[in-house]
Each structure stands twice: as structure tokens, then as C-alpha cells.
């Protein structure tokens, strides 16, 4: 009889995979002898911020291998279920695979158990998966995702960030990951307003990404000539929604208009 029929105990897809087809797990591939970090594309900056009744996540589109730009329109923000998404920074290949696996993990649980995991449950599940990748991280194949979810029990958006060892660390209000995150976080700190509208919060995230791209070579800015704009996701009571390119373009154009007058962006009041 097929192993799929036997021991139908665990509702975790990853646990099933580790016994049925362990080679399909991103972290079961054997650790490279030498660090290979710079030879493989890396994804960089992701920002997230909460608003009244939801959360926004945005990611730039650049992937770099060392000093090379390896892709201009890579996607780093992935819908994982109706009320959550992950953004990845670090080794792109492993990050994308992890996001895909995580998406199946959540759906698998939902279908088997007939209920959706709690926001904490989802965050903890991702932590376990990142922990599994630690040996690879030590060889330069680190992936550090950020997870955001709308929590229907509380009626608010939540943000969880991680380190290479797992986590999760819940963040209040806003967070950023990736090489441009230092600059993005500075911008978020200045521009973030509690209980702002979803639209204003999208603008805050786009401004933060712009600042990250301004000072970090590995983060790409909006590419108006090629029409490549950041990926922006909004999650609220209505569920996950990825903004269309047209919507993001409109925001980006107004942002660029402002920056043409004041290149360092909007000023936060001094007092």
C-alpha cells in the first residue's frame, strides 16, 4: 500500500515530505563544502507596516549575485493563504522554494483539518522551517523571510520577522528585512503613522523602499522606463490583495514627483 495511505497522523505537509520524499525539502540537499553566497542570486529589501485593520507588505524587484544585477523583476512577496503572505530576503532560490513549501504547508493543514491555523500557529510553523535551513545558512545560503498576516481574532494585521535560527519575533507597527532594511527602517520610523489608512500605509512602504534603493546598491528602485514597480500586497478583513501594476504606478509617479522637488523625500516634523 502506498505510504501516503499509512500513518495519516500528522497534518503537516513538511513532516510528511520529510519521511516520504526528503530530497524535496529545501534544506535536505547536503551542505556545500564552501560558502557559495556571492555566486547565487540574492533577494534584498522587504518592508511591512500595519494600518487600521490590516497590514501592507512591499518588496523591491532586484536580485543580485555579488556585484551583478541578476534579475530586475524578481518577485519576493508571496501570497501564502487567504490572510497571509511572506516576503523573502537572502538566497533567492531557497527563499522561493521555502515560500512555495510554506504555502502548501498552510493549505495542507487547512484541507486536512477543516480549519485555518491561528496567526501564531502560522508564524511558528515558518520558524520551524527556517530553523531547518540553519546548516545551509552557515554556508552562505541564508534565507530570512518576513511573515505578515491578518488576525481575524483580533481584527488587526500582524508582522513577524525571523533570524537565520528561526524566531519568530513579532514586530510592532513596522519592520524591514534585507540589505536595504537599515535605510528602509529609518524611513519607516519617520513616516509611519498609527491607524493610518491602507493607502497612506502603502505610500509609507513605497517611500521606505525608495530610501533603501537610494542608499543600498542591492535594492532596486522603481524602474519607470521598463515599468517595473515594487510588489505591494495589502491584507485585511477582505483577504489578500496584490495591488495591480497600474495602482502601484500611480503611487510611484506621485512619489517621484515629490522626490524631484525634494530628493530626500518627505520631512517628518522636528517637534
Amino acid at each position, binding site marked *: 500500500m502506498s505510504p*501516503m495511505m499509512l500513518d495519516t497522523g500528522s497534518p503537516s505537509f513538511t513532516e510528511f515530505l520529510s519521511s516520504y*520524499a526528503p530530497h524535496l525539502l529545501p534544506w535536505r540537499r547536503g551542505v556545500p563544502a564552501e560558502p557559495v553566497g556571492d555566486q547565487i542570486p540574492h533577494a534584498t529589501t522587504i518592508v511591512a507596516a500595519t494600518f487600521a485593520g490590516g497590514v501592507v507588505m512591499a518588496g523591491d524587484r532586484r536580485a543580485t549575485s555579488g556585484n551583478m544585477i541578476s534579475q530586475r523583476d524578481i518577485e519576493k512577496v508571496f501570497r501564502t493563504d487567504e490572510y497571509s503572505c511572506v516576503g523573502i530576503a537572502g538566497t533567492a532560490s531557497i527563499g522561493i522554494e521555502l515560500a512555495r513549501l510554506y504555502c*502548501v504547508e498552510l493549505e495542507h493543514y487547512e484541507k*486536512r483539518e477543516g480549519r485555518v491555523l491561528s496567526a501564531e500557529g502560522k508564524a511558528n510553523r515558518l520558524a520551524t522551517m527556517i530553523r531547518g535551513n540553519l546548516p545551509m545558512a552557515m554556508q552562505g545560503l541564508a534565507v530570512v523571510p518576513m511573515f505578515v498576516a491578518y488576525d481575524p481574532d483580533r481584527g488587526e494585521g500582524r508582522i513577524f520577522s525571523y533570524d537565520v535560527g528561526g524566531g519568530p519575533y513579532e514586530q510592532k507597527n513596522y519592520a524591514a528585512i534585507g540589505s536595504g532594511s537599515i535605510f528602509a527602517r529609518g524611513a519607516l520610523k519617520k513616516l509611519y503613522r498609527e491607524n493610518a489608512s491602507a493607502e497612506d500605509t502603502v505610500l509609507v512602504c513605497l517611500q521606505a523602499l525608495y530610501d533603501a534603493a537610494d542608499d543600498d546598491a542591492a535594492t532596486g528602485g522603481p524602474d519607470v522606463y521598463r515599468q517595473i514597480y515594487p510588489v505591494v500586497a495589502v491584507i485585511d478583513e477582505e483577504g489578500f490583495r496584490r495591488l495591480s501594476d497600474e495602482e502601484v504606478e500611480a503611487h510611484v509617479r506621485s512619489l517621484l514627483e515629490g522626490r524631484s522637488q525634494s530628493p530626500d523625500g518627505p520631512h517628518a516634523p522636528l517637534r
Partner: protein
Amino acid sequence: MSIPFGYVPAEQQMRDKADYARKGIARGRSSVVLQYDNGILLVAHNASRALHKISEIYDRIGFAAVGRYNEFEALRLAGIRYADINGYSYDRADVTGRGLANFYAQQLGMIFTDSIKPFEVEIVVAEVGNTPEEDQIYRLTFDGSVQDEHGAIAMGGQADAVAARLKDHYREGMTLEEALQAALAALTEPGNEPPPTSQLEVAILDRTRPLQRKFLRLTGRRLERLIEAGRKAAEPSGEGGEAATGGPEAQATPPATPPATPPTAPPTAPEGEIDTGSGE
């Protein structure tokens, strides 16, 4: 050489197993699966709100079952694993109803021949396509035989009576409300009240759903509204006499003993054809 003690000829053994499984299935309540204009409707008469007979397997694939709960639950869980592992290692588009039906056929066939006790289940794997012609519905029985179906299917206890009523009420290209009425009529024993909404488990695979996952459970107010709308639509067209016409044939069927040898036999049985697959 003498025949070993307790020897039962293979033929007899298979027949006994089939009878046993069929009896088990006949004890339960029925489920029906039918196509409507925008998808596939799955309806089960189920007293439990938590233990499902109908389930999502994958984006476009649903599952309906009758028989022994722990057995079809094992099949359901295995099916979800099968679908998720294929979708993960290839692509979501590479998970098909046909593949899943074959997987189930293998498992059920193996269990039927190798185990002392066969599974007392009958299941339907339904995959919604982009058009009604592309819909795929597979019916699988306890011995692993598969049948490729079209239109409307009934299974479970009193399956023949339910199927006959379903046939009377079903036509192609019905709306969801109409299809739901047909399903309800099929699940209603003549002269009796239809099963209360609280005992109906209803789900659809809706091809017009904008999401990747087409499976949707219909419950509570929404289900009541749909049933009510269907009932209203049926009344003015003079189909109110339905119950009356259903009466006479009702008298013929209900007290009749459980169908030991149904006239339209399940797709295969030891005494019948062995697995036609019906794909020809």
C-alpha cells in the same frame, strides 16, 4: 494433495467480500454529485457538522464519499497528500482528477484483494473544467473499479431509488439553485420531508470563482437562501405536483428490502465485469 483446512475458493472469497462491502455501504445515507452550468455540486445527507463526507482535495478537485467514515477519511487524507506532493514537486496545473482517481483505484483494488476486510466505501472524484464538457467525474467503488461519469450520480444507501429520483429531476445546464433542488428531491424519500438544512452538507466546485481554489462549502444563511430561491423558482412553473407524482412509485420502493442485488449493479463485481474503466 489435500485441500487445506478452511479453504475457500478465491471466487467465493471475492464474492463474499463484495457482498460485505455492498451491505456496509447500503446502510449509510446517500450522497449525490451533479453538474450544473457553472460547475459541480456535491450534496450529502450528513447528520454531523464536523465529520465531513465532502471535501476539497485540490484547486479544482473535490471529493464525496459514502460508507464507513474512518475508511473514506483515510482515503481523503491520502488524496490530499497525493495532490499536494504532486502540485509541489511539479506544478499546480499538473494535479488532475484522472491521476487522483487512478491513485484511489490502485489503493482500493489492493485493499480489496489483499485485506481480509474490504473498504466499505464508494467515492466520487470530481474535477471542474473550464467548460461543462471539460468537467470530469470519476466514481470509484470498494473493489477499485473506476467509472467515468457525466451528469448526475447518486451513491450510498438506497442508491437506486435516489438515482431514479435524481434522473427524474436532473437535466443538463441547470443553474445552481435548480441543481440543488434536484439534489434535494433525490435525497427526499417519497412522502417524507426533505432532509433539514442542518443535515445537509453542500459544496460546489465553481469554475467562475476568481480564486485558484474552486471548492466552496455552502453553509448557513447562504445555503438556506439558495434552497429557498430554488423552491420559489420551481413552484410557479407548476411543478408543485411533483410530490404527488412521486407518491405512487414511492409506495413501491421504500419498505423494499435493501438492494441486495441492485438492477443497475455497481460498475464491477466479481460476478460482473472486472474493471472496465469505461474510458473506451
